[in-house]
């Protein structure tokens, strides 16, 4: 095997339970984003754009969509004779067989994969952030500081710092202290979950920590390295970086793409984001249709009105329907004269005619108050909404619903319908 200087390990096994029904049947990194992409496209594109051609993708939760999306890595040019993309799923071993119990444990179980390439450095990434970053610049920093571990950090507002893992550094950028979600943060540099390890140091840490249950980078490996006195450095990043871990932040990040000149610009020639494109046809806007301040995917047909929304590919919006402040993923069909306000509708849903989504006062959701909030209507993939129903805010729907599921034709704010099975 040809030796690689740095390889990437992309952690894509998490469910992302705070995305509610959106991740009922797909892993979070496979959730659609921006009318065409999936979240994992961003780290994968960053890898190839940074010159990293060997990427191990660790999957565990609902991997089918992720596997078929990545395939052999053609869209990212990661179909290589040497290296390329490899899906690493949990596997049975002669003495034991276990799931990936934590981020570091997942890497530990795949040390053989890393050893094949005998790399100098290993880049650890997670598959749930929207950003463009040149990992090669970060590697240069790592080398320049002669570091054992470099952690990418970004300044966050002080009042939000207690939600993150916080790094305290000296003037040199060397990490002196490490606080996980501190009540009284002493710095505002938040860890972005992107690490470069010198492989020797990581290997040693993984082996000595192998008995730790649910071994995690933030909770175990980084503190271990720190206590051992290894050289930990913080690499400050100041570009666009968005965690899309909650429905609110996911919705916001999509909406930010619509801005006149978005902070996160997908239209630049430089640093392209690649994805698997199944649909390539142009989209059609009918004579009676209207579309303003929106992103429209390929092959979509619009006969109604779209405002301030992100619409995926192969969507059909019927005559007289109005869509505002919403995210509609691929292959959704929306009937006629349906009004949709502030909704997230996952792939392949069918919404009837004459419906009203996102009406009334906000009420806390009865199933998961913290998840289904932000005033959103969230509809899981392959769901069906019958014609002429009204749906309130902070609601969640999954599965094939029938008129009987809507007493008086209404699903009040804060209610939910979760039907098992679906299609």
């Amino acid at each position, binding site marked *: 095997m040809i030796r690689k200087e740095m390889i990437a390990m992309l952690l894509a096994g998490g469910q992302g339970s705070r995305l509610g029904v959106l991740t009922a049947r797909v892993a979070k990194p496979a959730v659609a984003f921006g009318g065409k992409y999936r979240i994992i496209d961003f780290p994968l594109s960053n890898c190839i754009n940074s010159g990293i051609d060997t990427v191990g993708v660790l999957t565990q939760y609902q991997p089918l969509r992720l596997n078929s999306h990545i395939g052999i890595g053609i869209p990212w040019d990661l179909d290589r004779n040497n290296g390329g993309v490899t899906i690493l799923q949990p596997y049975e071993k002669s003495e034991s067989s276990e799931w990936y119990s934590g981020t570091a444990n997942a890497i530990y179980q795949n040390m053989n994969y890393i050893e094949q390439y005998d790399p100098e450095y290993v880049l650890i990434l997670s598959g749930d952030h929207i950003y463009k970053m040149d990992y090669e610049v970060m590697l240069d920093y790592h080398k320049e500081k002669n570091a054992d571990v470099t952690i990418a950090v970004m300044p966050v507002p002080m009042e939000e710092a207690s939600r993150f893992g916080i790094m305290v550094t000296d003037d040199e950028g060397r990490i002196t202290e490490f606080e996980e979600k501190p009540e009284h943060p002493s710095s505002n540099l938040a860890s972005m979950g992107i690490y470069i390890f010198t492989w020797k140091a990581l290997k040693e840490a993984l082996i000595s920590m192998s008995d730790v249950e649910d071994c995690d980078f933030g909770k175990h490996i980084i503190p271990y390295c720190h206590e051992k006195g290894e050289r930990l450095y913080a690499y400050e990043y100041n570009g666009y970086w968005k965690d899309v871990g909650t429905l609110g932040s996911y919705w916001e990040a999509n909406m930010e793409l619509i801005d006149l000149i978005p902070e996160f610009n997908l*239209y630049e020639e430089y640093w392209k984001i690649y994805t698997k494109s199944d649909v390539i046809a142009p*989209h059609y806007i009918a004579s009676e249709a209207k579309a303003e301040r*929106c*992103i429209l995917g390929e092959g979509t047909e619009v006969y109604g009105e779209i405002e301030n929304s992100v619409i995926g590919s192969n969507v059909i919006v019927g005559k007289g329907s109005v869509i505002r402040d919403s995210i509609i993923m691929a292959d959704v069909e929306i009937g006629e004269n349906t009004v949709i306000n502030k909704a997230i509708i996952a792939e392949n849903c069918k919404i009837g005619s004459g419906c009203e989504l996102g009406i009334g006062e906000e009420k806390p959701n009865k199933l998961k108050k913290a998840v289904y909030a932000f005033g959103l209507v969230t509809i899981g993939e392959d769901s069906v909404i019958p014609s002429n129903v009204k749906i309130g805010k902070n609601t969640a729907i999954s599965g094939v619903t029938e008129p009987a599921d809507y007493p008086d034709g209404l699903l009040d704010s804060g209610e939910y319908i979760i039907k098992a099975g679906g299609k």
Partner: protein
Amino acid sequence: MKALGIILAGGNNNKMHELSNKRAIAAMPVGGSYRCIDFALSNMSNSHIQRVAVLTQYNARSLNEHLSSSKWWDFGRKQGGLYVFTPTLTADNGFWYRGTADAIYQNIDFLKRSHEPYVIIAAGDCVYKLDYNKVLDYHIKKKADITIVCKDMPEDMDVSRFGVLCMNEDSRIVEFEEKPMVAHSHTISTGIYVLRRRQLIEMLEKCAEEERHDLVNDVLIRYKNMKRIYGYKIDTYWSNIATVDSYYNTNMDFLKPEVRNFFYKQEPAIYSKIDDLAPAKYNVGANVHNSLVSSGCIINGTVENSMLFKQVFVGKDCVIKNSIILNDVYIGDNTHIENCIVESHDTIRANTYLSGEDGIKIVLEQNERYIM
């Protein structure tokens, strides 16, 4: 693998005016996201024809770039592949392709070294969907020597730029005239032929011996009484784009729901090179009606009854009507474009007024671009 494919993409003619200055007709963008040759290539791929040769000679850069990887059409397998043959100098030949028959003859080794019993010959400048296996089955059933795929055109259409043919009740072709002064029929040849590989080799060698170079005149028409030539009629959409008007009309046909549905939605799909562009973006002031818009476009103005190809930027207060804007065009603010075809990579300065008064105007501004 009963057949191999040959796509004739060398063509160029003055009926395309400036549009074919920089590219072969087969490389013309069509239908928003495609190039014309994608239709023939996808039909080949969807018909499980795995070994396909593209013959080209007129300004092939654009075409070569498009065909630089065969993976988009699912060619490039261990068995078969996509081959692009341009004229080459050899010890005993220094000619360009002197005609369609000569183009194939100069690459006759490709035919001789293949093992597929049949050959499908298709033109690269037509927009259609066809399962060539159906034609092949028909060809075998009719015990034909050559089968020509043909189509009935509307009675009021001028067919004098096509090969016009007449068939008897058995569908055998009894009359065949290329570009007739007066057409006796409205059945035309679509430029798609099926025949046995050995038969083709034999005919081409004979042709070359006699210094004849055209596939239609020197093979098909010449052999029409000697050989069993049959017609296979198609009734689905088919269009040749080789004149400015037909190019314009073919693109505008995609605004019709049935055509859109046929090419964009119905399986099997038409494939093309993937450009990795972000989805189209509509800003404040976007006002689009009855139009097709491709990925990478950014729209700030009015677009009506038009087709925007990939990566078109439409500035504020622009009005674009009944027009085709090819790939990567930047249109400055307050510009009016009506009945035009705007050539790709063009930059239209702000406050420009462009209108095709009697017929379609081809716009080639070639201004320098400072923005983006």
